[in-house]
């Protein structure tokens, strides 16, 4: 049972990790904590749903276009809502993200709130038995999809020239501007990438659950918990935090009580921030306050 709980925890956790990674990238690049990140996930799911079910397009086409759309949404959010705030205080940015999260939720609810929307599974198939552990093909897809996306980000940030410059730009925007980086464009792109990771997470998880306007809230809290656990602003921490959170939830449910599954994330956030605010895996990074 332990092995099964742990493996299933990793499957769910890898989606949390992916969403947390998207938020972390944005935070690293712009010092903005995006309280509307859950809505990127939700919009990603709806984009795929509308293209696949509404327009009747095939999954590959729908997915490709949905990813493109979400990138665009991220860029637009930055251009239209974030950039005009200029050098406003931290509070204003936080509030702006709260505001657009409710805007997106409201718009989606207005158009799709009365439907029960769902996506067909990406992969059908009988469960595969590995002795004490049973997995669906879809589970492999989730791990592989999340794993691949995360690997791409790591390779990009740690090993490419552009990635290193990008990191520099996030740490010292003025210096970056001096060496010729177009910082505003870079910020736009990072918003786009963040929204795109939301869409990837949505693709991995939405076919096995419903698509509904409130689906972002839960995911946001899980991503926060993952980031907090792993140390705010640490890419590796976000991933480790996400995976750990998935396992913690399952172990809580399996060994303690099923009513604790839903608050595991909240408890993790509160405990970590009270006891070790720098995160279990992370180093302390002072944030823009």
């Amino acid at each position: 049972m332990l092995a099964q709980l742990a493996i299933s925890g990793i499957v769910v956790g890898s989606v949390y990790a992916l969403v947390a990674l998207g938020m972390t990238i944005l935070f690293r690049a712009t010092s903005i904590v995006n309280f509307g990140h859950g809505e990127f996930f939700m919009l990603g799911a709806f984009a795929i749903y509308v293209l696949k079910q509404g327009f009747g397009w095939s999954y590959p086409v729908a997915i490709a276009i949905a990813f493109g759309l979400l990138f665009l949404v991220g860029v637009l959010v930055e251009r239209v809502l974030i950039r005009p705030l200029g050098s406003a205080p931290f509070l204003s940015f936080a509030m702006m993200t709260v505001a657009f999260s409710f805007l997106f939720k409201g718009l989606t609810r207005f158009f799709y709130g009365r439907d029960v929307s769902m996506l067909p599974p990406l992969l059908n198939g009988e469960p595969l038995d590995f002795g004490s552990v049973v997995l669906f093909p879809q589970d492999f897809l989730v791990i592989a999809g999340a794993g691949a996306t995360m690997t791409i980000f790591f390779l990009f940030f740690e090993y490419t020239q552009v990635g290193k410059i990008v990191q520099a730009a996030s740490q010292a925007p003025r210096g970056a501007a001096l060496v010729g980086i177009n910082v505003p464009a870079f910020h736009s792109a990072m918003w786009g990438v963040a929204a795109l990771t939301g869409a990837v997470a949505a693709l991995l998880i939405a076919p096995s659950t419903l698509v509904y306007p409130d689906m972002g809230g839960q995911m946001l809290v899980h991503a926060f918990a993952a980031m907090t656990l792993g140390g705010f602003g640490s890419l590796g921490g976000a991933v480790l935090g996400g995976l750990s959170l998935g396992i913690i939830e399952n172990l809580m449910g399996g060994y303690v009580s099923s009513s604790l599954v839903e608050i595991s994330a909240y408890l993790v956030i509160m405990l970590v921030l009270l006891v070790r605010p720098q995160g279990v895996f992370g180093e302390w990074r002072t944030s823009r306050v």
Partner: protein
Amino acid sequence: MSKTADSSATGNYRVNHLARGRTLRGLGLATCLALLLGLPLLVNEYQQFVVNTMVIYALIAVGFNVVLGYLGQLAFANAAFFGVGAYATGLTMVHLALPLPLALLAAGAAGTVAGIAVALPALRVQGHYLAIFTLAFGELMRWVYVHADAVTFGPSGFNVPRPAALGLLGSPERGKYYLFLAVAIIAIGATVRLLRSRFGRAFVAVRNNERAAASLGVSVARAKIIAFGWSGFLVGVAGGLYALLNGRVTPDSFGLAQLLLNFAIVMIGGLGSVLGSILGAILLTGAPELLRNFAGIEEIVFSLLLIGVLFFMPKGIGGLIAARIPALREPLHRE
């Protein structure tokens, strides 16, 4: 309201310059009070109910503003304080048969305790850490309401007894109105006095610059605890009134939707403005009732309003008033 405002005006250091403004303001407040007292004669029961809701939200907004606007801390625990207050009033009336005034005090006490509980991490973590912490705290409270069935009656909530005294003035809504109005005037009046005293200045100093504040002898920790505690007290009492207003307390009332509403009211009313908070509450609780025929766009309208405020009037309605009507300017206004 005239009594409250008068005594706070004496504590108001502008007053030396504005002796004439003071008389005018006194007259204005007296008129206002008369209108507020006479209001029930002009409205039907439904409208009275909506007005009662406005009074509660005015109290919530002022309370939330203490932390968000004056202390400048991004805390998302307001819906939790509200819920704690509602549960405290309802449960002490049901389980302990407390009389109404005591049950409301219990709400205030519970809110204060919750406020201080949130202030403690606020001493260690700030900014988005605090925001996330308080978000988690609020959801945890909701989980407690749902799962502590034996005390809280679980997810379906419970009915709050209706004190007979509230029906003495014809309709219970009218009775509630005078009760709510009295509580709100006393509580908001006290808040105004607090904000204009050295305590309020300490809040704003902490918001401005914690290090500078500390160098002036402000205990940052104490200022945060007082602000959060007081905010929790006001919002807790508002929660107690909310329990009475609806006659029923359910966990669902204190979730993210509630938080958005509180947040929007304070932002649109204006950070660091008591008057703005009150007007914001009236606007945002009244507008959905007027727009009943256009249901479904509440979230969209609120969020667009929020965005508009952030772009075009960062000081909200309160800032607008301060710019236009100097007599209504509030000391300690965010500049």
